[in-house]
């Protein structure tokens, strides 16, 4: 029987693609490793290699065909001694259903854009199941302003580009930021506009280039240091804390270190324990740093611009699974969001849910479901983790008398622990229930699909915690 060759998935998110070109024809002898065809996904063209040997018996999908589903048979190979008569009926598509971690798809990484940090050209630019946020009533955004749909990725890029145009001292440095256009394409097109003096590819030497960045900031520049992911900044944490955060104080106020350290933080998808770490509480612990973790595109842009202008070292925690999500961004010449101010994303009377970064989406989703149960939740997006906007949190708790703190990282000594301490010490008399915390399970992140899903917090967990503090 002939061998069926199927449309391959070239990235974890790919469901279909265009078969742009056949590089073989019927009758050709193929050995393994030969390139059979070119396939186009949203942004990348990739080659399909044969892993089998034989003679091309039949081509089932025409060149140029679009929307070819992953798993569909595209070619049949005849093995040794077989003839056309041996061509079997192509087997039905064997591609598994796109994996979905929760019933409603809310936690389905397959729909949340780029998940392949080391290499991914495919920018799906889709919104996930994440609720859209209306930013129109944001006090930081003037009313009646035009909104432009922007991915979080492009919002970050635009922020950097605008600040680089504004101030010649701003430059970007990191692994694959220039020629490769960013491992996650966040620095896309910056090299073209600003050149290699200001968009600098580094070797894989986090400790070294973070230190060079800090030194350059001390020397009068305004570096943006990109870490491919924050996991790799553990190599550099000494410079972030000892060199950047402490120097102003140690120098009696003489030394300046205006620097932004940025990159994706937290879990991606199925990349295992060493590549899936949320550092929010680590950096939140350090005086001398500001720590920012935006949720949507407008905040990503406004806060990154503010971070670049800030005279202090800023740790800017992005989220890989949010990069491809689209949200409104106000169409303004110079849109800044002040660091240190939380945002009430949803007003409510019965329970306060405090979250940051990707957990904001899950919290909003949980709030919708709580509403169906008659519980009116208020959702606060911290946006900045240091300095912490305790005022906004306390004001809300004095109104709702109940609080759930949601974060992606581990619980012990986490952001939720800090907020719980703040509300119990400063609003104790207002509380009708002990504060609840939602966080990652207290284990390193496992690779297996089922264990990973069990380990990470999601909307269900927030929903359950809110019900619990409401005694419902």
């Amino acid at each position, binding site marked *: 029987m002939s061998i069926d060759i199927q449309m391959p998935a070239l990235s974890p998110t790919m469901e279909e693609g265009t078969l742009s070109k056949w590089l073989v024809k019927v009758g050709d002898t193929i050995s393994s490793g030969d390139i059979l065809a070119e396939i186009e996904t949203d942004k990348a063209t990739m080659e399909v290699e044969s892993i089998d040997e034989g003679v091309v018996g039949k081509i089932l999908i025409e060149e140029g065909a679009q929307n070819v589903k992953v798993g569909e048979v595209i070619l049949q190979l005849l093995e040794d001694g077989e003839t056309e008569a041996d061509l079997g009926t192509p087997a039905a598509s064997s591609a598994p259903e796109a994996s979905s971690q929760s019933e409603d798809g809310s936690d389905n990484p397959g729909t949340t854009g780029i998940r392949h940090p080391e290499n991914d050209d495919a920018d799906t630019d889709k919104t996930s199941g994440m609720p859209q946020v209306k930013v129109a009533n944001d006090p930081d955004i003037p009313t009646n302003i035009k909104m432009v749909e922007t991915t979080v990725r492009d919002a970050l890029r635009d922020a950097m580009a605008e600040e680089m145009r504004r101030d010649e001292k701003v430059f970007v440095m990191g692994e694959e930021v220039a020629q490769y256009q960013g491992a996650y394409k966040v620095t896309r097109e910056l090299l073209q506009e600003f050149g290699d003096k200001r968009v600098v590819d580094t070797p894989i030497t986090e400790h070294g280039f973070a230190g060079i960045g800090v030194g350059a900031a001390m020397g009068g520049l305004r570096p943006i240091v990109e870490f491919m992911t924050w*996991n*790799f900044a553990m190599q550099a944490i000494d410079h972030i804390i000892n060199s950047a955060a402490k120097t102003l104080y140690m120098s009696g106020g003489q030394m300046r270190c205006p620097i932004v350290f940025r990159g994706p933080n937290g879990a991606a998808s199925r990349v295992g324990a060493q590549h899936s770490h949320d550092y929010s509480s680590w950096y939140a612990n350090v005086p001398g740093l500001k720590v920012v973790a935006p949720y949507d595109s407008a905040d990503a842009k406004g806060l990154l611009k503010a971070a670049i202008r800030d005279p202090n070292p800023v740790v800017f925690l992005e989220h890989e699974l949010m990069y491809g999500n689209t949200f409104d961004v106000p169409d303004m010449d110079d849109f800044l969001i002040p660091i240190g101010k939380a945002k009430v994303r949803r007003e409510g009377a019965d329970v306060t849910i405090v979250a940051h970064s990707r957990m904001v989406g899950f919290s909003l989703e949980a709030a919708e479901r709580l509403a169906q149960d008659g519980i009116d939740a208020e959702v606060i997006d911290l946006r900045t983790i240091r300095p912490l906007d305790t005022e906004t949190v306390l004001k809300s708790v004095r109104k709702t008398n109940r609080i759930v703190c949601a974060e992606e990282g581990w619980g012990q000594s986490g952001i939720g622990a800090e907020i719980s301490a703040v509300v119990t010490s400063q609003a104790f008399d207002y509380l009708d229930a002990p504060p609840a915390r939602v966080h990652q399970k207290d284990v390193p992140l*496992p690779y297996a699909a089922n264990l990973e899903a069990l380990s990470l917090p999601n909307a269900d967990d927030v929903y359950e915690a809110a019900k619990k503090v409401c005694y419902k």
Partner: protein
Amino acid sequence: MATKKASAKKQLKTSKSELLQLYRDMLLIRRFEEKAGQLYGMGLIAGFCHLYIGQEAVVVGMRAAMKDGDQMITGYRDHGHMLACGMEARGVMAELTGREGGYSRGKGGSMHMFSTDKKFYGGHGIVGAQVPLGAGLGFANKYLENGAVSTAYFGDGAANQGQVYETFNMAELWDLPVVFVIENNQYAMGTSVARASAQTELYKRGISFGIEGHQIDGMDVLAVKEAGATALKHARDGNGPMILEMKTYRYRGHSMSDPAKYRTRDEVNEVRHDRDPLDAVKARLEKEGWADTDSLKAMDKEIKAIVADSAEFAQTSPEPDPSELWTDVLLPVEA
């Protein structure tokens, strides 16, 4: 201290049984990786998956020079190393699919597998981390006087990490029995060696520490084996570390969805065509009359069956039990 480049190509001595074994070991890695790529394409493997295709001669040649008891440690491009250490294809493939039958019982994934039994110490995701860890294994060997040598594999990109040089210094200072194997496949993701390294001759990176270094044709399994034997002996005899820079090439993208726009298709095809480590051995086998088309076909069939069996196992082995989430975080303290 002599630090030198690979000498001009000469025909190295070997035997029928040795060369057939080396070929078989490389073929297993190649077919295994092709299958892994296919399963990834079918959505059965997720996350990162870094294939070793093109680099097979490095680990197979080194392993052939190693003695039982010698250790191996590497980064995330680790499937080939595990197979070369004699780890089961089934257990490796099932870890790639995240199943109970995997070497880490599904909890590690492609980048994190281990076998203390086969002296394979991982499987590490942080670029460069395996270098001091490998020297630490050497430190333990020396301390325990067990006569073993550790081999630490790392890429041309990893060779720029600072901890590599801290390690070089201590390894030479303390004469640790460790061999540093730089797998120079010419790219670190999309960055070529020339764009990231002031000194592109990586075997010279030990000079200021007094570590002898050699540049080897990493596509020639016999040359790798010969250099490996020399370095292992040097380390085993108490003379400290040696650096072997293996000039090699990865055929596939950095990980599965790398469109690899930083190099041309011609560049890849040229290496495949002119320098393929398997083709070279195949040609020699045929020339010496040690194998013919039929016997090689039979071998390929046998290897394909092993790989197909591992893929079948990797799809039928169940996902880990949910209770596994909580195990292996800490060990109980013994009374």
